[in-house]
């Protein structure tokens, strides 16, 4: 039996001790004497969240397929254990071997959302490594980060040895081979390795690049330190998803993961081009998996996991070209063998309603629409094509089929938004409720429930809205209150509900999303003063961050509230995602006039993606 890193006493003291004991079904165990590279893959949040993430499982399988590499996992210790580990000097360890992270060659951390940045420092700190990259020595593991937030890596530049920009399946073999070459030489020097790794496409080593600033605080220059280093980092892309590495044996956590089901990725990228959406830009072009690939993968995942539920993962499942046959397969094959099908959010039309009826109890589930903006004018500004007609017709079909609950998702704080646009949100919800009551009373079964949910818009890098200004928390809350007050005046108010997100976290997210290297010290300060699990309401403290920003000279005005200039050098400009800045600028200008851009299947808008010659760009 494996020896555990934590004592019995500690495990009996903390919440959900099996978060830290490993031994899960399909976890991998290798003979340490037979491998050359130890890789610790990390999701910087608690176990149950991390175990739901597909990306780590793909890389776990990919790395462990290499005979010379052993990949293990590590997740953020919950605050109760974090406290004990600090007090008793217990080093952070990987789950499989229970060995301290310090013994590993690489620590890979995925950056999925900005509010987990302090947890990244937690991982490095608990591992017993210097938080600052510049202080690390040859016996320290290489810290590499990837994921969507890596597309603006600058706020973390002080702490990370290298970033991998793009899809993980592409360059890791090359990187690991290079590392092995260095490790096996008689005089391993981490800086020499970093210098050579920086030349691999997609790899960004921040310590090898210099930034200078203008008087107004914006970037004056961003240059590599040596001439033979690339001045632009190219995002890495998997051109053929059907043959890409896949998860043969999904890890089955003991503690219930947030996604306690098979998650089947059906495609990457999205054709819609909504202007607020970063994923829609950085994962271009839309690449679908072949339906036969999906059927085989679904079967394999279900057989190897024993999960009793399967769900589809993609940015816009309704756009998958073979959705009908795919749903037929899932409903016919899975439901009959005791597997539930959890549906992704679909366009609401007769087709999807028929499918939904087969797999869900209409009385309990809701129909979801994501108009994102209340008025047609605003929906045109953000290029989200949903019309009032779509929503009301869809709701009508759903209500007649027996559904009684509708959920509507919106954002507040979008560019060009006025109070009229905010008011349009509850007015739209009211119209949906009214549709329900048009059905004769004898044919209805009680009331309907229309729930509006608003989040506050955060401008993200690599979107046409990356220049947009943000607002102070008070202003976001004023708009939410306007929605709430207007809702209370609606005729069908008794059928309406409204919930809204936190405003102060929103502003913080904005600072990290579009921050530069000067934001890093504030993250360090905040962590050293107790900031941890900031994505969790219970642990987040806005005041602590305001203090950190104040002490480190990080201005909310400069990073969040300011509207950026078109000709400004943005911190992430050095990354090339094959969507040109000219395209973004054109989209930003079209947004100003409420002009709509068609989706990729309808017509090509020449964003720049065609160079990759794959996916939707190649469809006839």
């Amino acid at each position: 039996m494996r020896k555990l890193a934590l004592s019995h006493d500690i495990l009996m003291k903390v919440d959900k001790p099996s978060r830290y004991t490993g031994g899960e079904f399909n976890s991998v165990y290798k003979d340490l004497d037979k491998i050359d590279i130890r890789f610790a893959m990390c999701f910087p949040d608690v176990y149950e969240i991390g175990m739901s993430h597909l990306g780590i499982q793909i890389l776990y399988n990919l790395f462990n397929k290499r005979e010379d590499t052993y990949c293990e996992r590590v997740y953020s210790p919950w605050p109760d254990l974090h406290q004990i580990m600090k007090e008793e000097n217990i080093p952070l360890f990987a789950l499989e071997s229970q060995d301290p992270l310090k013994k590993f060659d690489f620590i890979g951390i995925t950056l999925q959302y900005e509010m987990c940045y302090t947890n990244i420092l937690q991982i490095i700190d608990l591992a017993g490594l210097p938080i600052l990259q510049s202080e690390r020595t040859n016996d320290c593991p290489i810290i590499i980060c990837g994921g969507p937030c890596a597309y603006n890596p600058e706020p973390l530049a002080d702490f990370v040895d290298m970033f991998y920009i793009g899809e993980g399946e592409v360059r890791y073999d090359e990187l690991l081979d290079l590392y092995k070459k260095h490790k096996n030489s008689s005089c391993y020097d981490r800086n020499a390795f970093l210098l050579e790794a920086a030349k691999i496409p997609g790899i960004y080593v921040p310590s090898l690049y210099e930034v200078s600033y203008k008087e107004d605080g914006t970037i004056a220059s961003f240059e590599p330190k040596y001439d033979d280093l690339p001045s632009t980092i190219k995002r890495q892309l998997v051109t053929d998803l059907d043959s890409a590495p896949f998860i043969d044996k999904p890890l089955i956590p003991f503690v219930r993961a947030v996604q306690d089901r098979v998650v089947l990725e059906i495609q990457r990228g999205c054709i819609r081009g909504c202007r607020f959406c970063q994923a829609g830009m950085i994962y271009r072009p839309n690449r679908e998996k072949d339906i036969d690939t999906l059927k085989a993968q679904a079967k394999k995942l279900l057989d190897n996991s024993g999960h009793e539920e399967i769900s589809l993962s993609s940015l816009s499942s309704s756009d998958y070209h073979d959705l009908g046959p795919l749903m037929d397969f899932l409903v016919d094959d899975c439901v009959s063998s005791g597997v539930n099908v959890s549906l992704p959010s679909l366009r609401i039309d007769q087709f999807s309603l028929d499918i939904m009826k087969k797999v869900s109890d209409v009385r309990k589930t809701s129909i979801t629409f994501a108009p994102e903006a209340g008025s047609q004018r605003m929906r045109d500004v953000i290029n989200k094509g949903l019309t009032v007609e779509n929503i009301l017709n869809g709701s009508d079909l759903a209500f007649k089929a027996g559904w009684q609950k509708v959920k509507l998702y919106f954002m507040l704080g979008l560019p060009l938004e006025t109070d009229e646009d905010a008011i349009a949100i509850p007015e739209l919800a009211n119209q949906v409720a009214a549709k329900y009551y048009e059905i004769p009373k004898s044919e209805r079964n009680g009331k309907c429930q229309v729930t509006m949910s608003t989040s506050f818009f955060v401008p993200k890098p690599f979107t046409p809205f990356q220049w947009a200004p943000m607002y102070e928390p008070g202003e976001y809350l004023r708009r939410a209150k306007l929605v709430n007050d207007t809702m209370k005046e609606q005729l069908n108010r008794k059928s309406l509900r409204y919930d809204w997100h936190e405003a102060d976290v929103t502003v913080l997210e904005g600072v990290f999303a579009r921050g530069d290297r000067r934001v890093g010290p504030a993250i360090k300060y905040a962590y050293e003063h107790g900031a941890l699990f900031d994505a969790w309401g219970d642990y987040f403290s806005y005041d602590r961050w305001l203090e950190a920003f104040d002490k480190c000279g990080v201005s909310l005005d400069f990073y969040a509230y300011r509207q950026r200039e078109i000709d400004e050098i943005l911190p992430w400009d050095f990354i090339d995602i094959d969507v040109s800045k000219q395209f973004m600028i054109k989209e930003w200008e079209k947004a100003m006039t409420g002009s709509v851009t068609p989706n990729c299947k309808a017509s090509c808008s020449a964003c720049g993606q065609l160079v990759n010659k794959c996916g939707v760009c190649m469809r006839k």
Partner: protein
Amino acid sequence: MRARIRFEKQGSLIYVGHLDLMRYFQKAVKRSGIEIRYSEGFNPHQIMSFAAPLGVGIESFGEYIDIDILKEISCEEAIQKLNENMVEGLKITSFKYLNDTDEKCMSCFCAASYKIEDRDNNSYYGFDINNSKTINSLIDNFMSSESIVITKETKKATRELDLKPLIYDFKFKDNAFFMTVSSGSVDNIKPELVLETFYNSINKNIFDMAITRLDMYTSNEAGLVSLSEVGYVR
């Protein structure tokens, strides 16, 4: 047809709680290909029930699950297929079919046997030397009283309970305490409680207990019968 599975839970698996273990078994059974029966309705679940939950931190050599299956499979094959879907720390040791008249393990389970050792290997359970004779005579003394009354505090009230009739066996052997106590839905006694009461009665401090459940029992005319004795092999 109904079948009863016996399994062991050790090592790092002792930190997996009961609900998590149930979820684990649902997936393991599915992976094994054993055709388990599902309940009806929109949220079908496997017809599977555990005899009793095992507390976190406790090892066991005798845990039981009753399942309802659609297609018969040889017991040997069932054990093999299930064990292919286990992890280190979990092992299936028996699979037997139940007669229609055999009660569900959850309802007929009435006693459990335990082994309790000192987690700190260096002490002699609070005695000067490892003296099994002394300890056993103290146990005999403890068990010879007419009653062993303790106060049990629940959220609602405090009640008095006589442990004596609920302790079926209690001895010290091979450097460990062994006991069989009443368990289940009526008069469920935790082994820690018995040992704490015993140590109290001899004015000694209780040691750091490492508890292992050895087996679970039902009763018939002959007395206590292990749940694994019920049913037949096919």
